[in-house]
């Protein structure tokens, strides 16, 4: 049986530990279809950012992070490229348009699609320990 003190200690550890997930784990957690980048599922993801506003992504993402978005046009991929976001997950069953898919292929950015809502997709990743990119940014500042 875990004593009260030990539980607190465990919580402290989980607050500070930086969890890294592979894109394959993300795919499994969010039950994703892979639209681009099947061969890149071994890549490591260090944090996540969820937004439909691309300026928020530019302000609060970190390199090597994941972007969850409902914005399906090419600007979602261009923003990912500019901000060095490593992979994209389109949520709520949305599929990127042809321009976005072509750009993702050109830039070598993996694209996944999940049927979960934004809220549930974020919640599932957070439960697995993946940190918010914004939290990591503020700690580094």
């Amino acid at each position, binding site marked *: 049986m875990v004593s009260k003190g030990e539980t607190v200690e465990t919580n402290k550890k989980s607050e500070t530990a930086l969890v890294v997930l592979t894109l394959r784990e993300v795919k499994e957690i969010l039950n994703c279809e892979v639209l681009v980048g099947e061969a890149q599922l071994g890549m490591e993801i260090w944090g996540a950012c969820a937004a*439909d*506003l*691309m*300026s*928020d992504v*530019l*302000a609060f993402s970190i*390199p090597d992070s994941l972007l969850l978005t409902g*914005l399906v*046009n*090419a*600007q*979602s991929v*261009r*923003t990912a*490229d*500019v*901000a*060095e976001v490593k992979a994209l997950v389109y949520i709520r069953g949305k599929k990127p348009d042809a*321009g976005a898919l072509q750009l993702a292929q050109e830039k070598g950015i993996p694209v996944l699609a999940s049927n979960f809502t934004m809220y549930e997709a974020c919640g599932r990743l957070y439960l697995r320990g993946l940190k918010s990119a914004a939290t990591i940014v503020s700690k580094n500042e």
Partner: protein
Amino acid sequence: MNDDSLLDLEFEIIGGDFNQAGRVSTRLKSILKEVGFNPQVVRRVAISTYEAEMNVVMYARRGVLRFKASPQRISIVIEDEGQGIENIEMAMKEGYSTATDEMREMGFGAGMGLPNIKRNSDRFEITSEIGKGTRLKVTIIAGDGTRS
């Protein structure tokens, strides 16, 4: 142009062309990566120029981005012919925006553009004239310059 200039480039940006929006900044980013600038500096330049490029696409008829880099310092000037900014002080506030629904559908126009550019620059200068256009100058210190 002094002796240690690495790059002196000029790009045209076409207003209203949402399909092409972002091409200049992503091209510039590739060039800087090839030259070997520090990745953090490359990211700051890419974010600043992308936001500035989107502003030209959204609010101006046309614009020009002039880019100069030495190993120590990067200077970016974006000049556009367009409607200009009525109240620069307000435009610098996060969340203030005059964007249309079309711009928001593109994922922009949330009132974060100019603040994002300022956040990523070491020096930020902006002047604007109503009905004529806007001039933005961004300086980014490249620190120890390119990787050896």
